[in-house]
């Protein structure tokens, strides 16, 4: 980055992503050869597309591009709307609807998969 840019400038004044389902651990990858048509992509959009040739989480994109998390969510949301990136939602969201409160039961099958993986890596 050549210098600090205020977040609302980068995102065109928006502070909330168009799709609030994006989480820190949502996984993003650029869709090769996607046609973004007439859409005006700014430099930060382009940097995300260049970075995400393979899978990275929203948090990783923010870290590598030195952008605040909320800004990356907005920009990835734009690119997602354009079909320029693919987004894999968090594994917990696949197992239950997004409106289910935090305290609701976690799926045992997912926890078991995490546990087996950790025990193998220990």
């Amino acid at each position, binding site marked *: 980055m050549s210098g600090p840019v205020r977040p609302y400038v980068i995102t065109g004044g928006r502070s909330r992503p168009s799709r609030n389902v994006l989480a820190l651990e949502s996984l993003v990858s650029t869709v090769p050869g996607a046609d973004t048509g007439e859409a005006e992509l700014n430099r930060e959009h382009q940097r995300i597309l260049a970075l995400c*040739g393979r899978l990275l989480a929203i948090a990783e994109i923010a870290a590598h591009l030195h952008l605040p998390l909320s800004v990356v969510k907005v920009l990835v949301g734009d690119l997602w709307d354009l079909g320029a990136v693919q987004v894999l939602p968090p*594994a917990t969201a696949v197992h239950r609807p997004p409106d289910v409160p935090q305290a609701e039961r976690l799926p045992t099958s997912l926890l078991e998969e995490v546990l087996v993986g950790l025990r193998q890596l220990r």
Partner: protein
Amino acid sequence: MASANSAEPSYLPSTVQGAVKVLVTGPFGVGKTTLVGSLSEIAPLRTEETMTAAGVGIDDLTGRTGKTTTTVALDFGRITLNPQLALYLFGTPGQQRFWPLWEDLSRGALGAIALVDTRRIGESFDVLGQLEEQGIPFAVAVNVFPDTVHHSEQELRDALDLLPDVPILHCDARDRQAAYDVLIDFVAHLHATAVLELQP
């Protein structure tokens, strides 16, 4: 702490279908980034989030003007659990002024590991209260420093005012095996709890 932000990104395998996350929280200096670093397969990364003035709250009584946002640094790491699933570990500040960020950080988290330094136990009261209030499943992990005095589990449970179902674990956050044991014990606890809740 050094981070690897400037290095070539370490990508996930293309077979990964999704990720889960666990928060690592506790007061400043308790060893959150150390624990994340011991567990992570990549050098911990640092990212930032901004909070608006509304979120600064009671800390900002100095009457300074012109300061409308504050920045919070988050250190995080990653474990590829199997070819389809990854786990992210987010070091999450445990001071009250960061509560406005918690809703977003904790949404969808499997739970949180609350690191405690028993030499300054009072500093953990806020974050334990917040975890209870937010209904986030958690375990307490005592980060054992060289001059940490041993306390019995019951002494710790009383001092921290913990419910009986909150596990109390111990580790040296610098030690990979010990860090893994804490994470494994915590996820095993979550799993056992989830299985129990399935019983009629």
